[in-house]
């Protein structure tokens, strides 16, 4: 936006610097195992960023993030296991499938508000899970679908793929929320009546946001499937995975684009440090998230901002 180009350019330069600095990590002695933690953390970062486009900006709490992710993952996995296409085409199809599924879900669901919207998105995950189990001869059911192809085996390459995806997602989403589209979306999220009176068709904007969120979720879901080697319900179509995504976004700082990256990496690294606690580590992560929720409503990114704003 004119008059504040500077304030857009600087975060973007920052994003580029951080991305490049992170990209050399494999070459400065970071172990492959640490890379794989970051790789999964970055996939989660993409989920969390996509989720927050809906929540932080459009004001809709989507409890069915894994419906979108799962569609992307299963579309890609089923195409690959049936030998239909190369991995990249499968991933692209996964993203497209997620957009279609997202639109099918969102178009009617967006008529509902608050807890009802949340419930429908949650139920969508439950139904999808049931259908996968029900048609297990095609979907692999509880066992999942093994994908025969891989995109890359090297830990560093996989890390770069995830990093690139996260960086591109952050870039696109950031430009988007700073564009007129994002301004309108935010206005809709904060006061939908006012936004309607200003002439904006809120369903059209929310639907677009839902599709964008679905696109990145599905894309990341498809890529992560090829990274893991299987698509399975416990990883891709699970309400509690959706909860982890929500926690990552809120812990990182909602309505910030970059915050959810921070949140997702924080959660990944925190679980690594808390691993000595054994089966209590998930409890500890939830406790930390709860404390962040209570005392840092702006999330970790909010904390950084707070510290940098003197008054």
């Amino acid at each position: 936006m004119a008059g504040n180009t500077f304030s857009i350019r600087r975060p973007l330069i920052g994003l580029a610097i951080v991305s490049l600095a992170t990209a050399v990590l494999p070459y400065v002695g970071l172990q492959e195992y640490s890379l794989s933690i970051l790789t999964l953390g970055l996939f989660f970062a993409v989920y969390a960023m996509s989720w927050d486009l809906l929540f932080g900006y459009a004001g809709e709490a989507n409890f069915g993030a894994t419906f979108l992710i799962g569609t992307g993952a299963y579309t890609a996995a089923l195409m690959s296991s049936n030998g239909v296409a190369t991995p990249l085409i499968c991933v692209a199809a996964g993203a497209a499938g997620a957009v279609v599924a997202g639109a099918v879900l969102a178009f009617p669901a967006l008529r509902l508000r608050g807890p009802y919207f949340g419930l429908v998105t949650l139920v969508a995950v439950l139904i999808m899970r049931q259908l996968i189990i029900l048609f297990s001869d095609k979907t692999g059911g509880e066992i999942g679908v093994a994908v025969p192809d891989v995109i890359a085996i090297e830990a560093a390459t996989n890390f770069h793929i995830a990093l690139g995806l996260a960086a591109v997602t952050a870039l696109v989403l950031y430009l988007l929320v700073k564009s007129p589209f994002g301004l309108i979306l935010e206005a809709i999220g904060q006061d939908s009546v006012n936004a309607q009176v200003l002439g904006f068709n809120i369903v059209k904007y929310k639907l677009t946001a839902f599709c964008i969120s679905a696109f990145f979720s599905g894309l990341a879901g498809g890529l992560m499937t090829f990274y893991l080697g299987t698509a399975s319900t416990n990883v891709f179509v699970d309400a509690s995975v959706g909860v982890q995504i929500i926690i990552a976004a809120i812990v990182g700082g909602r309505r910030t684009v970059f915050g959810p990256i921070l949140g997702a990496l924080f959660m990944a690294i925190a679980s690594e440090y808390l691993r000595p606690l054994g089966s209590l580590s998930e409890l500890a992560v939830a406790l930390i998230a709860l404390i962040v929720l209570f005392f840092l409503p702006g999330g970790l990114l909010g904390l950084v901002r707070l510290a940098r704003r003197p008054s």
Partner: protein
Amino acid sequence: MTKVHSGLKALSKLALGGFIAAAMSVQASAADDGPIRIGVMAKFAQINGAAILNGATQAVEEINSAGGVKGRKIELIQYDDQGSASDATLAFQRAVRQDQVSAMVGTFLSEIAITLTPWAARLKVPYIVTGAGADQVGKLVHDNYPAYKYVFRTILPASSTADGVCQSVSDLAVKQLKYKRAVLMTEDAAWTKSYDEALKTCLPQHGLDVAETIKVATDTSDFTPIFQKIEAMKADVIVTGVGIIGNKPVVQWANQQVPMLLMGYNAQAGASSFWKETSGATQGLVTFTAASQDSALTPKTVPFGEAYLKRFSTTPAAHSYATYDAIYLLKNAIEKAGKTDADAIVTELEKADFVGASGRIVFQGPNDPLTHDMKFGKDFVTGVAIQWQDGKQVAVWPSDIAKNKIAFPAFVNSAPK
């Protein structure tokens, strides 16, 4: 907004800095004279996971106190997969890349075993599945041999289980009890597809008609309609196939006093804690399993069960036997190979002919349909059928090791209809 990027940078510096330092400080040494590291993976908060861990612990402690592997101790390292494939891949990478384990055993969930199979191949580390029974694992190894040759399995795959269920049920139900009609009740899941097919062909061949196959959703809470329906079919026995919802059908079968025996396969009922979990409702249930405390399948079976009971105050589950044997298989292979090199271990495992606690273990070859699964049947691994009687698992099949005959819960009429 101008502050965002620098904040992000500051925080990532903070987090990553510590992270890198921590990650780099844990440099494992894989010297040839140090202990041999073996990883064990499962969700340890679950009974199944604990059974896997205990089986491994028992074997490692025995081996170490007997002098180790050619003088080298085995160090068992635990990896909790939290029941999630993504956690499992992380843990697997940590085991291989950071802790530099020589082999990995364990895994209860099939989706995790299938996910880890290509990882074992990528990271070139022997991986013995001791909990997950989906046929797909063996098929994957077969289809991708030799790339996936690193993966073995010491628990029976679903098709062998179906085989064992068919043999045990036809011996017990047809020969002993003179039953004629059965209803097949299996959970609606991928692993039961081939299980159903196998039993539907096999049971009638032995003289037991399958009146109907009833599929049960894995989130079923109320089994009343299902049991009512089965009863209306006038069958003599219910042959089950459940692995995910083991508790509920059994408890409700007892509560509702369904007047037919439950036979077949129930994964949870193979665990010794099942009596407590069901508060005794499992009385009279018959299930096929790998081995049990009192079944003298091999000379090692009973001693292992007794030592296990002493060490862990509970009796072993099927996965305990499988994991126990897996560790011994690895020990033998390393000794024969003379080194911990992955390919050498695999070569020795492929040649193994080993009498373990669960039977004589010989792996199927690359041309067999389920490569690196155990050969099944007489003279190899047979499995046992046990019945829960007064808090204990009692072996009732095969006849040569059976201690007791089938007993009937008060509400089940022994005579065929």
